[in-house]
């Protein structure tokens, strides 16, 4: 198991909602989105699969190239592929808007 953390200081749009999406099932993950306390975003990931820090970085860099909300993101992962990770993140953004 591995814990991974990222900061995104440019994500400055204020968020007021929170969202929970997904299940920690095989090949899947769950994610929490909550408002952060300042004008930045923070990501923390707990994953059962070791050695994929770079892949996580690429996925979140891409996500934050389009998303600018100041959120705390927490992920529990049971081996989701990069594609499913992005889908779960987009679902969470959709849930934030509701």
């Amino acid at each position, binding site marked *: *198991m591995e814990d991974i953390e990222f900061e995104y200081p440019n994500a400055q749009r204020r968020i007021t909602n929170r969202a*929970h999406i997904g299940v920690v099932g095989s090949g899947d993950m769950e994610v929490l989105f909550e408002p952060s306390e300042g004008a930045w975003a923070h990501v923390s990931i707990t994953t059962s699969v070791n050695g994929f820090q770079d892949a996580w970085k690429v996925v979140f860099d891409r996500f934050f190239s389009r998303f600018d909300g100041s959120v705390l993101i927490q992920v*529990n992962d049971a081996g989701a592929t990069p594609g499913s990770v992005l889908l779960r993140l987009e679902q969470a953004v959709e849930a934030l808007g509701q």
Partner: protein
Amino acid sequence: MIEANVIPVFVNRGSFIELSGRERAQALFDKGTWRELVGPFDRVVSPWLPMQGVAPQFDDGCIVIKGKISGKPAVAISLEGAFQGGSIGEVSGAKMVAALDLATIDSRNGKPTAAILLLETGGVRLQEANLGLAAIAEVIASILELRQYAPVITVIAGTVGCFGGMALAAGVSSYVVMTREARLGLNGPEVIEQESGKDEFDASDRALIWSIHGGEQRVEMGLADDLVEDSLHGVGSAVQRFVRAGKPTQHRSEQVELYRRRIVALDASSQIDPLALREQWKSLNSKERTR
């Protein structure tokens, strides 16, 4: 229009099995009456899983929702089968027990509160072995307490099924609702095969497994009360009916003598086949159970 005709009724029925544990629990309640207790944002996670290299889940795979069903107070406790096989650990067990005990307190104070257990579980979580076993004992004790005042309704929709210690919890419930896809049994097929060999029980023979553990057989043998189709309406209306019915006059698990006589009367000299067993089992009948 054309598309509407082509899409089969089957697709449009609103499958219950395809819902997540959380969505299943939410779907049972009257609109706008429910709220989740100790949800994922409270982050009450298992402390034991990360120690063993397993990512936890923020609700520990146990979802507790309080609200009204058919206008009556109820609490649903739903196990998420996709997380660690719906297994019971220290935290998920404590959530179940606390929810059942709160329902008992409300019921004693003149507000009968039904409990609906949505069980998709292989039983005790192996990573939390002893704590899981203790949790099962506590869950069963809490069900026995609550069922004196209000119905405890177990729903096994599938496709994980309900096995291990939680099958005992289903056994002491007031009512059990199953679909054809669901299974209920103490030892799962793989466990039986591993312990007694493939000749005893072939865990790859799905027809055999469902003919013994499946919802239809369980209902036909009177070990479950209602066989429903896999749809929101099918499961939802059965739960509503049992909530309205209230607690039964006599619980299945109180009829010890009846079941003892049935087991004694079984003819074990030849291989028992599941269809014949239904008839044999029922020929020794008690007075009808009151719903």
